[in-house]
């Protein structure tokens, strides 16, 4: 191939050369480059996927997954006026969402309502929901709302309990709002007396440990932060040469995952994020002790922890790089997957119990200090939806008893409904294997006894995704503050207190 022939195939080079030689105008140059850009962008769209550490079990289609006949009948009865409508929502690839995405065809078949679920990383879910409510666009009919955003979006959703009463003709028989775990409703779904959405999933902190590693080193399962620190130190010293560290962290700078780890450290030391005077307390003595302990833990975790969110933390556990981790219960089914190198080796345990908790009377903005950080989410019905009733039908279906059980069977995650926890099919899967539910008894106990919740306030989504994790990242990676936890949190306190005052809260 001559250079001349080749050159014709190098589009951008041709354009640049022609433009520099003034053979084409600036307008033509920009137009052609723009066309090339569109082509490249379209190519990229199909190549991005999700990263959540969830592994499906292939149960969809099994007998246990058959849709309840009464549900199908009801859907057919009420959906007539909405046939042909299309509803959309965007969500992180949480276990229930992934299973629901597989099941949504049943809903469409019964109702004629199409459902599009966009599965993207959590920060993009926030970005898309933010954009939608800012412009009141109604591009999304439902919002997947992380617990830390519930207050922020409370003014953008329809109260499902009220809507259930207001629209009796569309109310699913036996939906039973009382079947939702009470701590979940108060800690997750409610803001200022309103249900912002229906509880949809409940990742919650649980201690997980490698039984074989602890036995090898004669370490008993830690129950306090001090025991945990000693255990991970011992394991790191003994196993680091073999590529194993005591723990693994989700300490990615600037990411919400780091903020989740931090809040737990604060609560464990008897601290809180806000005081009853609505001032930031992350820089008081208790909170600083917690952060200093976390700085210690970083030494006993793979260095890549500082660039890892929950995905990376799960990978550390699955790859045998860490031995004891306090993190999300929803990792568990993936660890027991058939292709897992650590299948059956991880065990669930109660979360670490630190110092006496700060009473809720001494904290602000509805924060609930406790030993198990919850990272649940709700499905919220958009106030701006153009297909609000079709979306309402889907929302009830997605959060119904039948679907909750089937999502649990399909993904092994913790259900929202008490009936799902007690379902015989769910209990029967409490064995080592893909989609195991063998951790769910522990999870239910934790929800009932140890569930903590972050503050409910409109600015929290920003603080928890920006000011706090960014400054924590500066501290942990040595970019600023010279390792001084107090200096770091004083900086955060100044920024947050100013923003709260500025917003008039």
């Amino acid at each position: 191939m001559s250079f001349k022939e080749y050159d014709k195939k190098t589009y951008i080079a041709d354009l640049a050369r022609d433009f520099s030689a003034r053979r084409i105008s600036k307008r033509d140059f920009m137009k052609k480059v723009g066309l090339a850009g569109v082509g490249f962008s379209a190519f990229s769209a199909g190549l991005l996927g999700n990263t959540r550490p969830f592994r499906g079990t292939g149960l969809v289609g099994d007998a246990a997954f058959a849709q309840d006949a009464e549900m199908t009948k009801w859907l057919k009865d009420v959906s007539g006026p909405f046939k042909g409508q299309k509803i959309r929502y965007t969500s992180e690839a949480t276990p229930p969402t992934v299973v629901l995405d597989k099941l949504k065809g049943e809903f469409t078949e019964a109702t004629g309502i199409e459902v599009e679920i966009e599965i993207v990383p959590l920060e993009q879910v926030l970005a898309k929901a933010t954009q939608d409510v800012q412009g009141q666009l109604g591009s999304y009919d439902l919002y997947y709302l992380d617990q830390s955003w519930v207050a922020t979006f409370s003014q953008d959703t329809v109260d499902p309990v009220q809507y259930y009463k207001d629209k009796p003709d569309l109310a699913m028989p036996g939906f039973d709002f009382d079947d939702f775990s009470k701590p979940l409703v108060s800690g997750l779904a409610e803001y200022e007396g309103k249900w912002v959405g229906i509880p949809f999933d409940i990742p919650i902190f649980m201690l997980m440990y490698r039984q074989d590693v602890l036995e090898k080193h004669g370490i008993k399962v830690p129950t306090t932060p001090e025991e945990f620190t000693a255990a991970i130190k011992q394991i790191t010293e003994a196993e680091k040469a073999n590529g194993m560290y005591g723990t693994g962290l989700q300490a990615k700078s600037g990411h919400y995952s780091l903020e989740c780890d931090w809040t737990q450290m604060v609560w464990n030391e008897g601290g809180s994020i806000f005081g009853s005077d609505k001032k930031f307390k992350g820089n008081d003595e208790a909170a600083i002790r917690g952060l200093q302990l976390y700085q210690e833990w970083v030494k006993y975790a793979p260095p890549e922890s500082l660039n890892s969110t929950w995905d990376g933390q799960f990978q550390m556990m699955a790859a045998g790089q860490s031995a004891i981790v306090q993190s999300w219960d929803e990792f568990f089914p993936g660890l027991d997957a058939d292709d897992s190198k650590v299948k059956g080796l991880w065990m669930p345990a109660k979360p670490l119990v630190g110092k006496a908790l700060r009473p809720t009377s001494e904290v602000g903005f509805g924060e609930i200090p406790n030993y198990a950080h919850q990272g649940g989410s709700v499905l919220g019905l958009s106030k701006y939806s153009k297909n609000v009733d079709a979306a309402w039908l889907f929302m009830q279906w997605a959060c119904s008893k039948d679907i909750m059980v089937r999502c649990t069977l399909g993904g092994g995650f913790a259900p929202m409904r008490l009936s799902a926890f007690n379902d015989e099919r769910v209990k029967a899967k409490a064995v080592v294997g893909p989609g195991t539910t063998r951790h769910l008894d522990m999870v239910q106990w934790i929800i009932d006894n140890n569930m903590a919740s972050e503050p409910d306030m409109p600015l929290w989504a920003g603080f928890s995704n920006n000011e706090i994790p960014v400054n924590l990242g500066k501290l942990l990676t040595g970019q600023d503050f010279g390792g001084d936890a107090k200096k770091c949190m004083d900086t955060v306190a100044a920024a947050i207190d100013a923003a709260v005052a500025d917003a008039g809260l």
Partner: protein
Amino acid sequence: MIVFGLFPLVWAIIESLYKRNAATRKLTFDPAYNWTKAFYDDRIWNAVYNTLIYTGVALFFQLVLGMLIALLLDSDRKGYGVLRALMTLPLVIPPAVTAMMFLMMLNGSFGVIAQGIIALGLLPENFSILGSSNTALAGVLLAEVWQWTPFMVLIMLAGLRSLPKEPFEAAAIDGATPVQAFFKLTLPMMSKVIAIAVLIRGIDLLRAFDYVKVMTDSGPGTATETLSSYAGRIYFGGNPDAPYAATIALITLIIVIVTSSIFMKACKVRL
């Protein structure tokens, strides 16, 4: 022009003149608020610094490597056509995918690049390149330089192939060495092409976002935060302060206009 250029610009300017209440989402007209806030915001100055460093370093490596590779590929010998064609491959990979690839390759535990560097003894065992504030920007730049150096190569090749042969033949007769010919003939004659290439890439680099967002999300801390990624975090990070994000975007625009104007003036580039 009105839809894609003027309207968004005017909208951003108007938006920047309002103050947003994060709790009530109400906007109040306060023309100086965001601009004053920006002036005293340390993160903006850090982002300006990072953006300029990112642009300068990336441009330097892309230009030098681009020219070197172009000189090596500037031949009609057999096989060189295939090599030139292969050079275009990185350009068709979406930046987000490139960023994901490098994110994995730079992972201290299993990444091939990180392991290579560690094996050479340049970094300690399991060192997290993207998790350290001292090395994260270099890690991101690696992806940027890998993907966009071929763009420079192609432009340089196009320029090299269009150079007249006579001056080089005359120089050879006069006994000029290849190095002398490069500095005395090639570079001066290629100056316009180089200027255009630097301008195009420079404007693009000043808006750096993709690699930073995917690989470090501006971290650790703010070690890789650029103006665009900071504006993105302000708008999409939970408290969508559109007026302040618009102000940061306008600051970026001002920097782009000022630096490219100075460059065009200095290099006598006319568009």
